[in-house]
């Protein structure tokens, strides 16, 4: 019986589906990846490329003005030296926001992972995400109610110490950082949470049974093991923060001038898209340079 079957299989020979020469692997890989890459090209790459082309033009190509290709938009940082100061401010705001997010987000994630279980943990996760789903504009405007003079913060202080002065600090860089930390904190909590959940409880039990104090566990075990989460959270936060314009504009008042607001002005008010595009590509280059500089640290972090 078995023999018969074998013969018939060999008799079917080249016409059988099994023995047809298989397609080279790259064909199927390409076929499977095509929709994804096609979509990426259409939705991400082409618009970005258009903006990149725009950044070399002398004017927005939507009027009657003749368009010449020029590099002058990329000279903006030399022609308008105050832009360098704005750029540094934006990077500093990005740095402080990321730092505060990292500290608060990591501790929140540790608390979530180490001291809650099951339903409670899910509930807390939802509670963390819930404000994140509300409109960003609403959240930023609600901060103006809290931080302004005679706002909630002041009223709270005056309930305890009626004679105290105002501690409202709306329209300062601190207010901008507070608004940004509030807006981007969930990214850090989520990435750290995912990294921390994967750590085996046995490791921590072993450490504590060997006499490690809580700070040793935190700094020597939890932090290195959760480094990938911390780093991806930092990248997710740093990049959008240095381009943010809504929070600085609303919470910053006079001091709320960042690269984000400058670029937004070029697009919405000045109708100078080429300058806006060149500024954002310059910003992108600076960010890439920063990540390239720290790439060694970043790689070590993700491997650990």
């Amino acid at each position: 019986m078995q023999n018969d079957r074998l013969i018939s299989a060999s008799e079917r020979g080249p016409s059988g589906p099994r023995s047809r020469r298989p397609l080279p692997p790259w064909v199927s890989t390409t076929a499977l990846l095509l929709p994804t890459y096609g979509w990426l090209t259409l939705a991400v790459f082409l618009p970005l490329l258009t903006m990149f082309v725009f950044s070399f033009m002398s004017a927005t190509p939507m009027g009657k003005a003749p368009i010449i290709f020029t590099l002058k938009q990329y000279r903006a940082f030399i022609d308008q030296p105050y832009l360098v100061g704005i750029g540094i401010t934006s990077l500093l705001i990005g740095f402080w926001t990321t730092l505060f997010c990292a500290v608060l987000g990591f501790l929140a994630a540790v608390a979530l992972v180490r001291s809650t279980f099951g339903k409670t943990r899910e509930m807390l996760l939802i509670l963390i995400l819930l404000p994140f789903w509300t409109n960003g504009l609403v959240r930023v405007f609600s901060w103006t109610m809290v931080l302004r003079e005679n706002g909630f913060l002041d009223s709270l202080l005056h309930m305890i110490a009626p004679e105290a002065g105002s501690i409202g600090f709306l329209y300062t860089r601190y207010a901008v950082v507070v608004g940004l930390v509030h807006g981007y904190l969930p990214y850090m909590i989520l990435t750290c949470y995912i990294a921390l959940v994967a750590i085996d409880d046995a490791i921590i039990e072993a450490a504590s049974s060997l006499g490690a104090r809580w700070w040793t566990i935190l700094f020597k075990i939890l932090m290195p093991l959760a480094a990938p989460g911390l780093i991806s959270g930092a990248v997710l936060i740093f990049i959008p923060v240095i381009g943010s314009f809504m929070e600085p504009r609303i919470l910053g008042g006079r001091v709320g001038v960042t690269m984000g607001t400058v670029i937004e002005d070029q697009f919405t008010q000045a109708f100078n898209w080429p300058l806006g595009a060149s500024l954002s590509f310059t910003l992108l280059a600076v960010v890439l340079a920063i990540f390239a500089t720290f790439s060694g640290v970043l790689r070590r972090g993700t491997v650990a």
Partner: protein
Amino acid sequence: MTELTRRNTMKLMSAALIAGVSISTLPRKAFSAGSITVLNWQGYGTDEAWSLKAFTEKTGITVVHDYYSSESEMLTKMRTNPGAYDLVILNAARCAQAVAEDLLQPIDFSKVPNASTVDETLRANPNFSKDGKGYAVPWVWGMTSLAIREGMTVPDSYAVLADPAYKGRVAMDDDAIINVGVGALMSGQDINDPKDLAAVTAALKSIKPNVKLLWSTEDQWNKSFAAKEFDLSLFWSGGSVRSKRVSKLPVQFVVPKEGGVGWVDGLGVPASAPNPEGALAFVNWMIDPIFYVEWATKIGAPASSNSAALSALPADDLTRLVHKTEYLKTTSFVSGIPDDRREAFNNIWQEVKAFYAE
């Protein structure tokens, strides 16, 4: 009985469609005056239902609307749809551009009787005319100037913005054209073509210790003013009327001796308009005191260009008190400016903002 094949169904449907279209166009043909298509911002005076009803009853002309959401969109619509519009509402600064591109036709003022009381200063705006011919009828106007908390000393000059008495109590309009205009007025120059840009920058930079915030929407202005975050601000004349009337804020609008930074919207007839007669009849209605008084008191409107219409408002009307016609003599109107100058203005304002933020 014929079968209900695909072809027959198509025939039936197209027949019904043709019948429907011809029936709906029939009554229009019966009207001798016809209809006009107006291009405007939505909810900006021309599309009030009560007014259109009265206008159609009076003239037999029906009014159809199309809207734009930015002034560059308005120009694009005129460029790409010749013959589609009979009337367009356009700012003086854009009017010059439209006239240069031959998008508008000269206005026959004999067909707009109400234009005889339109303020001369507005009618003489060079942006509305070319080679001695008028290309738009001035419709409504307003200005950006100072607003101050009621009960405080009324300033007589923009120099007050830099007065140490207002340290940290000033708000500025986050708009390049307006601020360069104010800087030009502070340094005694033409707002549309200041020769000494360094003086404009210096004047704006001198305000720094006083500047508390830069506002960009009326709502933001109202909230911050109500929260007593500032006492003195650059503000829109119409905005001050709304803040006082609607939000009951204690704000007083002040036009100092240098004058306001003004804007004026005109009514123009596109060069390719199918019904210019009807359009001019509607223009006449739009600047008619009967329409204006109802618009201004019921809904709220900017100042009418027609002094007869403005003075037909009740004597204590806020719009009338804020927009005194004598201000027209001192107000400088924002005009169409070349692209390189616009870019220079924007760069100045960015530089000043960066200086404020230091």
